[in-house]
């Protein structure tokens, strides 16, 4: 259904469009991240770009901003082809990008960061007065007041986000691209940002707005382009579509189906994990219990403190206060360090698979052997026969494809890499397994298999704790969902009563949550 509406849309706006992309294709290795996608945005328009994680939004946006060179297709800015592969030339052509990850230099001041890359000079020297003037003007334009000489490292996350936007605005762009700018903002800050964007659009700026949050899109956007699996699905006027239709387009199926696949709540067993008063950077006093056979979900926005909570709980990061115990078969153990957590039967699958989860240059079999080395060795000498057998069994169990345990983990796709991470911990037969964003950047097939494995773990009596920003996933897996905001649990929902709306409203604090 992609081709026909797209050509219609391009025809309609080609006359007035300030930025146009035609047939963009971008591949990484053998993987096509963006496949023949077109887009056109006119001055004064706020154009939403939506899609699930891994749909290709960020890649497309980086192509539009000149950071990535497309393999095929062209980007036209005001009719002129954009010289791709250079962030600077795109900025000079009038395309400014506000990154998802903050891209400010922590040790430099607000004024310096706003001018970075375009610092005004006089005979090579920084023109400080001009630098401050430009920064003040940009901050003024978005109506934010902050000390220009403060280093970024001393600002709050929200303020950094606004400085980032001020930096984009300071370039006097004609096209402004924002990648999930509200992910770390409170509702009040979000509302402020949305108003600001509308004002900028009224002054004739073309805005491309990437967000997961459907209400924001309906509030400020004029049109929306939906991507799925790197392909263009639809571009429609926001007035012609309803929120649930948009969501269906994004996921490619009806949401109702997801809700039906919700698992039967398990009969709760003994308490396995018991944490109280956890405090750490970004975590402000959280109590949590997880029982055997139960899947507990942690919902919330990015940056709410969920990852920090689980890492502090098991000792992977420093915790400043709080007590954690793991009870298995009547024996209770205190968790004082990460190693004591692992020794007590905890398995932790971290958020960042490539940097924290796997040794990519080592083989699958080595990766699986790593946490299981004690049982696979005798007197410090590895037993290779046992390792091969063990790794093979686990690779089959998680459905690794292709099942070649002798290959480097880095050779596999994201989904299969994640299966290797699961396999290495399944080998320990954990009593408590903690999964942080278990299916991020994973293809649909692998996602289904990973969900099956997680449910099976719980059915076999393990206590499971899942952190996920993927709402359908959270709802599908969890028996209980704790919603975290600002480092606190702000509400608890049973699996039966939870839906996307209730989790989201608690997570964003838009309504007072009914804590169960």
């Amino acid at each position, binding site marked *: 259904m992609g081709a026909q509406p797209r050509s219609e849309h391009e025809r309609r706006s080609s006359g007035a469009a300030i930025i146009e992309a035609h047939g963009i294709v971008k591949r990484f290795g053998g993987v096509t991240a963006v496949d023949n996608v077109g887009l056109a945005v006119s001055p004064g328009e706020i154009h939403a770009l939506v899609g699930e994680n891994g*749909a290709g939004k*960020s890649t497309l946006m980086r192509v539009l901003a000149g950071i990535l060179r497309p393999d095929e297709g062209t980007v036209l800015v005001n009719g002129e082809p954009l010289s791709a592969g250079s962030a600077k030339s795109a900025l000079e052509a009038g395309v400014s990008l506000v990154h998802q990850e903050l891209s400010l230099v922590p040790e430099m001041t607000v004024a310096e960061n706003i001018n970075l890359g375009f610092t005004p000079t006089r005979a090579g020297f920084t023109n400080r007065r001009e630098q401050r003037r430009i920064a003040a003007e940009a901050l003024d334009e978005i109506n934010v007041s902050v000390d220009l000489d403060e280093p970024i490292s001393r600002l709050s996350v929200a303020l950094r986000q606004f400085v980032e936007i001020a930096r984009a605005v300071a370039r006097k762009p004609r096209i402004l691209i924002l990648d999930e700018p509200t992910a770390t903002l409170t509702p009040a800050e979000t509302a402020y940002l949305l108003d600001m964007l509308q004002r900028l659009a009224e002054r004739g700026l073309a805005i491309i707005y990437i967000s997961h949050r459907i209400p924001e899109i309906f509030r400020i956007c004029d049109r929306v382009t939906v991507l799925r699996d790197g392909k263009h699905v639809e571009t429609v006027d926001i007035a012609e579509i309803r929120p649930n239709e948009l969501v269906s387009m994004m996921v490619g199926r009806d949401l109702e189906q997801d809700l039906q696949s919700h698992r039967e709540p398990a009969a709760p067993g003994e308490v396995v994990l018991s944490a109280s008063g956890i405090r750490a950077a970004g975590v402000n006093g959280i109590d949590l219990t997880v029982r055997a056979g139960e899947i507990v979900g942690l919902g919330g926005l990015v940056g709410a403190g969920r990852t920090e909570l689980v890492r502090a709980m098991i000792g992977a990061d420093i915790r400043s206060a709080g007590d954690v115990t793991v009870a298995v078969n009547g024996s209770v153990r205190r968790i004082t360090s990460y190693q004591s957590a*692992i020794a007590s039967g905890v398995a932790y699958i971290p958020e960042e698979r490539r940097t924290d989860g796997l040794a990519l240059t080592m083989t699958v079999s080595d990766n699986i052997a790593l946490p299981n*080395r004690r049982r696979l060795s005798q007197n410090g000498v590895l037993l290779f026969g046992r390792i091969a057998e063990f790794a093979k069994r686990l690779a089959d169990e998680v459905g690794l494809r292709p099942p070649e345990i002798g290959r480097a983990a880095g050779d596999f*796709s994201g989904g299969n890499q994640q299966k290797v991470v699961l396999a290495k911990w399944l080998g320990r037969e954990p009593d408590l397994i903690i999964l942080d964003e278990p299916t991020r950047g994973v293809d649909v097939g692998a996602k289904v298999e990973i969900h099956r494995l997680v449910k099976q773990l719980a059915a076999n009596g393990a206590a499971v704790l899942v952190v996920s920003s993927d709402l359908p996933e959270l709802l599908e897996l969890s028996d209980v969902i704790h919603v975290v905001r600002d480092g606190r649990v702000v509400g608890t929902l049973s699996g039966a009563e939870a839906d996307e709306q209730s989790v989201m409203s608690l997570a964003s604090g838009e309504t007072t949550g009914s804590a169960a």
Partner: protein
Amino acid sequence: MTAELTVEPGETPESADQEAGVEQQEFNVLVWMSEQGVFVFTALLLVFAGIFIDGFASVDNITDVFNRAAPIGIVAVGMTFVVISANYLDLSVVAQVATSAVLLLAVSNSNNMLLGMALGLLVAIAYGIVNGVAVGVFRANAVIVTLSTTFIGLGLLRWRSGGSIYFGDPDGVIATFGKTKIGPFPLAMLVLIVVTVAMHFVLTRTTFGFLVKSFGSNREATRLAGVNTPLVVIGAFTVSALGALLGGWVLAAFSNTAVSSMSDGFDFEALAAIIVGGTRVFGGKGSVLRTLLGVVFVSALTNIMVLSGYGFGYQQMAIGALIVLAVSVDALARKVGSS
């Protein structure tokens, strides 16, 4: 090449979901050179030298090459563990080798050999622990840490020894060891081979060697697998220190003398041998057998230069260039492979 670097696929926020399947790697000259090249180059070098360099193939010369190669080889084999653990190198082997040699001869002369060896062992363990704790626990940069321990160690040695030369008993056990030969092969060569085989076993067959590799490949993933990573680093530096200890003994035995300056340049020559052998300078991958091959290459090259009348300066230049060249080939091969 354009003015800006392109972003590698792994760094993009949505790096690629691909269907099940692994990337097929095509044949690439740079990759081949960085992985297999050393075998061919070493063979070519030896054949070339045997034919064209007068005196290279003589028994005396081969014995000489082995005598010089053995201590550096033993040091390089130990240091391979540090390189594989992604901590670049252990500069302090220079101080360690000299200390071990001086302790052995000085204490043998004044008391007895076993005490000298025991003291050497204690010093080696101390080096391993100090370097390892600074790098593993304090997460300090290994190059700077070992630079500072080199100066501390050499300073201590020169201060205590007054920079004097120690001569061993010409008929003692140490001198006899240094003189013993099996055919053209000095006993030191046998020590090198035994050490290499033993360390090969440790690296490839034991949990410790496995963890060193794993740590070098991904420090954080290894920590999150429940490994006590500081201990792994301390272990790697201790293996390096034990290699330097043995290397110092062999060096002392060969010349039956010991002086604080006798091991100058051991750090770089050992590193050159390790890198030329194909151990990856970024860690995670490597083998002590390859280091042995690298030692053969570097020693033969040095010997050829000596025989051809190229002195110390040229040898240093060659080894410096060799390090940069070998790492460049590896870096370029990885670049080509990833794009």
